[in-house]
């Protein structure tokens, strides 16, 4: 079983299935190191207390609630990006120890660490010389 199948984007909240208009799928990097997977998600402008991370039946959901920064009725000269909630879900395989998933948020980036279960970790096998 490859780790690629372990974690995969399931939906980006298209067609308003779960969230209203103005909800964005954060860009993510998913990196697998020896004993864990790391997910880096760009979620600027979200206060850490407004980030919900849920894990239920093999699905990891991250959701960030945005607070508008411009005063209502501000006269916009440029509006090149929308401010809204971030939402994205991932399928997590059985290789991940769900109870030990940890998260931290700094400079607008949410970092999740998903430790692999011991059985899924690479193991170095020493070859002994038969004497």
């Amino acid at each position, binding site marked *: 079983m490859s780790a690629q199948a372990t974690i995969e984007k399931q939906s980006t909240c298209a067609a308003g299935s779960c969230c209203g208009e103005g909800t964005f799928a954060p860009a993510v*990097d998913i990196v697998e190191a020896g004993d864990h997977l790391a997910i880096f998600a760009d979620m*600027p*402008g979200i206060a850490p207390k407004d980030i919900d991370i849920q894990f239920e039946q093999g699905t990891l959901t991250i959701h960030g609630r945005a607070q508008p*920064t411009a005063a209502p009725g501000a006269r916009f000269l440029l*509006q090149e*990006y929308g401010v809204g909630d971030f939402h994205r879900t991932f399928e997590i395989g059985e290789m991940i120890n769900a109870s030990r998933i940890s998260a931290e948020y700094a*400079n*607008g980036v949410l970092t999740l660490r998903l430790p692999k279960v011991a059985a899924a970790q690479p193991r170095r096998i020493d070859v002994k010389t038969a004497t």
Partner: protein
Amino acid sequence: MFGRIASGNSALSHLRDEVDRLVGHMVDGSVNWTPLAFNVAPTYPALNVWETEEALAVEAELPGFKMENIELSVMGRELTIKGERSQESATDATWHRRERSAGTFARVLRLPFDVDAEKIAASFKDGVLHVTLPKAEAARPRRIEVKTGNQ
């Protein structure tokens, strides 16, 4: 019969020339053809700019940047934002998804009015850069009293 073959060949070579012309143009860039990725992000970062009575507010989402890697400067009516974001590097790691970009950027924003360069304030919180550029005295709205002309 040879005539027909000859004419067939000429049609074929004509077609090939036509394809070469089109493909060649695309490759050498004389046709307005750019990879999709470049069309998606024409300028970085995207900016929201709004005006209040006293100031201009400029905001940019710069997740993963650090304050010390962002450089702001104002020259006349031009605001320049520069920055650099490095990618989490890990040797012997496998990348399953790589949607976040890294590198340097520079963007120049033309300001609609003169600003008071001494009073520009910038903050960086949760990956969002917020710059407040107070209007220069001359650019502020001025209330003009209308006097009643009592003759």
